[in-house]
């Protein structure tokens, strides 16, 4: 046990360039969630905090690492929510807040938006490694605790990261145009996504149409215009109308404002007052400027 139920997993990184070999620390514990198959007593997944960055943390490379701890534990899947903010162009600072999970799709349209993927739902900088079975997970944890507790064992059992043959790094990785899209595949993805959206739209429309048919307690039915497509749109429009009503107040007085003497006097007074206020304000400003020594010509 290291901290708050996490177990430390030390991974040795080989020497590269002029840097000597070093150790990367992950912190692991069984992964639990609201899903029925991910409860404390039946989960097969391991929650990893501070995993290695994505190209170094692939299914293959995680397998080689984990096999070194427990050769009998088989891994079926690795999810990773990498600590990466690709919108952080250095010129304008960061864009992604690592403390939040923001879904613009849902926010832009609560009815038709699509949820975040399972991977995206993980906290930033964490990974979930799923074993084939519960035993694999338990065995892995036991072995890891043993290694950690037994200092002599720890010395000769160094767990090393070995990389993934299928992942290219260095020149090969960076001399490629990044994020190049295969057009045929993309066409399919786009088409599929649009189709799904249409279906959702259809569903929502059906929902609305259903509303029409519901007779409420007082015996009324909802009237829906032909343009209305979703429930919240209807509710939203009601809200908006109410707002507009509040704003529009009858302010169309057609009184003359410079008819009576008192009106003119009042206006002059106001003008004088504002003139004076501005004067005072300017005095303050100049005072401030003097304090900042703004009047030194040399």
């Amino acid at each position: 046990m290291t901290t708050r139920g996490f177990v430390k997993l030390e991974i040795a990184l080989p020497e590269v360039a002029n840097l000597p070999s070093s150790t990367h620390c992950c912190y692991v514990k069984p992964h639990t969630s609201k899903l029925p198959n991910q409860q404390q007593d039946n989960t097969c997944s391991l929650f990893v905090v501070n995993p290695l960055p994505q190209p170094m943390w692939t299914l293959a490379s995680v397998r080689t690492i984990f096999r070194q701890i427990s050769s009998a534990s088989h891994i079926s899947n690795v999810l990773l929510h990498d600590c990466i903010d690709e919108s952080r162009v250095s010129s304008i600072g960061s864009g992604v807040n690592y403390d939040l999970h923001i879904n613009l799709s849902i926010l832009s349209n609560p009815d038709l938006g699509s949820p975040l993927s399972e991977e995206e739902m993980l906290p930033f900088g964490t990974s979930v490694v799923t074993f084939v079975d519960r035993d694999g997970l338990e065995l892995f944890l036991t072995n890891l605790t043993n290694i950690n507790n037994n200092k002599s064992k720890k010395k000769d059992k160094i767990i090393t990261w070995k990389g993934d043959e299928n992942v290219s790094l260095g020149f090969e990785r960076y001399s490629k145009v990044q994020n190049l899209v295969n057009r045929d595949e993309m066409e399919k993805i786009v088409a599929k996504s649009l189709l799904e959206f249409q279906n959702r739209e259809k569903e929502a429309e059906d929902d609305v149409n259903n509303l029409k048919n519901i007779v409420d307690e007082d015996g009324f039915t909802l009237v829906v215009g032909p343009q209305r497509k979703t429930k919240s749109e209807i509710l939203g429009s009601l809200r908006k109308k109410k707002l507009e009503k509040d704003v529009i107040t009858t302010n169309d007085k057609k009184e003359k404002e410079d008819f009576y003497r008192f009106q003119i006097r009042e206006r002059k007074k106001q003008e004088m007052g504002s003139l004076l206020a501005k004067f005072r304000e300017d005095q303050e400003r100049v005072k401030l400027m003097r304090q900042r020594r703004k009047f030194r010509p040399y």
Partner: protein
Amino acid sequence: MSKRSNDEVINDDISIDNNNNNNNNNNSSSSSIKNTKPSSKKAKISSQDIQIAKETAELFKSNIFKLQIDELINELKLKQSHCILIEKVLHKLNNLIGKIPNSTPLSLIEAQNFFSDKNIKIPFPDPKPNNLNYNLQYIIPDDVSLVGSFGLKTAINSKNGMSIDICISMPKSLIQQKDYLNYRIFYKKAFYLAYLTHYLSILAPENNLPIKLSYDYHNGNKLCPSLLIESINDKNDKNNLIFNKTNFKIRILIGLPFGIFESKKLLPDRNSIRIQNSLINSIDDLPPTPLYNASILSSTTYSYYLKYLYTTKKSTESFKDAAALGKLWLSQRGFNSNINNGGFGHFEFNILMSALLQGGGLNNNKILLHGYSSYQLFKGTIRYLATQDLCDDGYLSFNSLFDESDSNYKKKGFNVPTLFDKNTKINLLWKMTKSSYSILKKFAIETLDLLNDTVKDRFNQIFLINNNNLNLKYDSIISIPLNKLIELNEDKFGSLEKISFVTIENYLCNKIYKLLIEALDDRIYQIDIHLLKNTQPWSINKRKSSNDSNKDNYLLIGLFINPNESDKRITKGPLHTNKELGEKFVSFWGEEKAQIRKYKDNTVQWSCLWDISPTDSVVLTIIKFILDRHLSSSNNLHLLSNDLIINSSKFTSLLPKPLIPHSSNSQPLILPNHFIQLKLSFDKISKDLFNLNLPLKIKSILPISSSLRNTSIILPVPFATGNPDFFNECIIQLESSNRWPDEFISLENTKNAFLLKICNEILKNSSNIKDAFIIKDKNSIPYNSNILILKILTNDGYGFSFRILTENDEFLYLKSIENCSKLPNSQTQIQSIENSYLRFMQKYINSVKHHRSISILVTHYPYYSATVRLFKLWLDSQMILNHLPEEVIELIVLQCFIDNAPYGIPGSVMTGFLRVLKFLSNWNWIEDPLILDLSKDFNNGNNDLENDNNIINNDSYINKITDKLDLETYQNINKSFNKLRENDPQGVKVPYFIGTKDDISGKIWTQGISLVIASRLTSLSRVALNLLTNNDNIEINDKFLQLIFTPALKDYDIIIKFDMKKISSKKLRRSSGIYPNNIKFKNLIEQINNYENDGETVDDPILNLYRELISRFGEVIVWSVRKTGGLVDERVITGLIVPGNESRKFKVGMGYPMKLINGNDSNDKKDQVTLDIEDILKSCAILGGDLIKSIERKPIS
């Protein structure tokens, strides 16, 4: 006129008010008034305040301006204690002068003998007299009086102290009527001065006044030596009167009695030095001697003009303050009464102001009125200088006798700056040259514009900013070593030249001015010619200042370039048929240069054709040519151009040269052909896109790329895929439709479907396309990872990238913000989405507006493009460029062009660059908003000149169509600045505020810029500016300049070095389209004629790695890299560790690699984690793999 009546009414009001007050006070005992008093008093005070407020708003530009002027004048006041001390000194000096015994009349030899054993020489002006047929004598002076600004009590504090002028008038009995001829009076004056000096040097120390005496030419006039008295800090005797702390010097001038000579004979067109010359037959043929004549006349009028000015000052309440403003204004622009400093100083300004108080209009109408405020007097005088030509078109003639107040502007000038006093017959501008007058006028015009500015506060630019730095002041400055110049031209300075110009320096300045004005014509606006150093005071044991002082002195040619004309390659002369002018043209330019050319319109003209040099602008080429032709040694053995020092060319040559065959390796700085070619290609591809058959038509294609607005560092060379700006970003707007989905992913995907369709169609249909592909845009907008970009390579060798904008995009961002705000605890979430919205606005909306503004302004300011490019290059060399959006940089550079006061629009890359540095090193981003008027309306300034006194009619047609920044917008921008700084007083979130009409919020481009970077930029600018504008270094050394463009790597915590075998810098340089450096055989340079890369690989992998490092570790380490890798031999990526992550409590989702802090398990350390730098560096090394040679970390000190 209406102003005047207003003033008087107001003044009357005040006086009545005061009376009432007095009455109240007097009657305060009476009980009836007492009752009402409290309320009335309160009312009185406020009404008085209102009065002041109202008055200042009318008499001054605005309240704040008056208050600022008041403060400034306070600041300029002489210290009372200093004045009391110096008055004591002056009294003592006066006593001492009274004690000097008379001399007997002495012949020249006797006079010289008198001083032979006294270590004092008579400061005879050149030519030194050999034998005189008259006597020299000292008799106690008629009059000793205080003159100059101290005498007038208008003196102000100045930077280098001031001199207090005393005029000692030679008695009439010593002067004969004919003494004005042939230097006689000057010899007499010189003896008089030497005799006085001798006795002062004895009497002063004896009387507890320890002083140092030296001779000094008064106002640099070599005919008029004066005596300069400085205090010696000798405390041996406690009674000693020491005044060195005051920083005052006392100058003794030898004056002549007023009216001693018949002034008609000393008119500027008269000759008073009769010489024998083979070319001259009679006295009437001798050239006039205006300098000589004016020197005599002005020595008769020292006290006279003091009285004149004093009387004016008495009758005009604000004269004194206006005089102070005038003096400060002049000195900030390098003007004073010294011949070498323009010859227009405090005295001349005051005389002009007095003359304008007497009249000055065409019909003797008064330009200034006695009731004017200091601001009105100052502005009126400036306006007069700006709008009336006192040189060629006309002149101002006035009469210093008050009873004859006729002061008229008269048509037809004398071709010299003229302000003529009919009474004394002096042209008071006699010390000015045409050159200095043109400069004065230029400054007056610019200042008038500032004074007329109703939107911004221009006080700083008018009075506080000093514009005397040579490299900042002129567009280009050419320094000629004075010794060399004199050596080569001594033979041309004959006796006739001597009498009209007095000194060879004056002669050369005049000659060069004339030559250059003729040679350059409208390529330049003004030329300022003067010597670097004024003649210094010299020891009283020498007759004149030694020629050694010429050794490190230079003749400076300061140019104000007209960028619209300056780079034209042909100088056109007279028509071929005009024989007389043709001959003149040939003799001016030389037979080899002057050619006859036929033009398209069938005219045949004498012309000169100029080569384009890679470094020198055409103007400089012409100057070199003409100086060589006319001012080199007569046998042409030594060319003057070899000795010229020209700094501006060095800056130009820093810009990367494009890779093109050597035969055409010179590109004009202004609008190089590359930008034009790129634009043509853009037009072509746009046409192809418009023609596509799509479900929705393309409405517009909006470019947002820096290369398409001429501001990219590297010129766009075809097929140069290694140029980081190779792909020119554009935005496609489709026809409007109501069928865009109301949800982000689907909207993006619908857009993507269009993009894919466009890609397929264009590949099929356009013959212009080499290749097209699509990439995912993950970095433009946070949380929106579904954006695609279409990239196109055209057959003519250019790259474009397109993204789609619909009318639904912005709506969805706003809707998301609205929906989010309904959620509980959504504050931080809203901030993030607002950030996404901001980034969307940047990329899709504001970038378009920005591009539009800049691409118009870039044509209006010809040197803007090259300046931005050089400035970006400098930022890149300092590894800052990547940290600032290019739009911010473009706006900052633009500041120096559209908000150029007091310098003017930069007319060369050097001045542009230096003024940007100047701006950055002085600007306080925390306290001041930068507000830029991106108006494309350039003619309005002139309108102001004409009707600036009329109340500008807000409803006028002109005002409605103008896009100038109006007061309301200005105030709104100011408001948003104040609000911003309330929330972010240190500028952590938004270090820079740049408000424009396009961006009232002022933060579109600057939100998120790192404060560390912002302050680093300021300090780097300061260092660079100090090094480059040190006035002591006439020449900016090449190595020095290199240094300024080299990064300080030792400042960084981490340095990643690369294996340069993997990434050849030579290859990258070539593929970026940059001309190779250190090339031996120029004919072996190969152009790029085709795509040398398959489209799936990039030329510069370092940039990709850099992007990955920022994305992953940018929050904890500030990474920097040079964007233009082709320009450096050794690439590095540097890192600065952001402090504050040393110890945090453990939590899930930290956002950076960390490890538990080991060691003692005491409770307070438990669960604490630290940023694992070592692990980050290791990850970098693994990711970078074979690219990386080493990663070095600065040892922690």
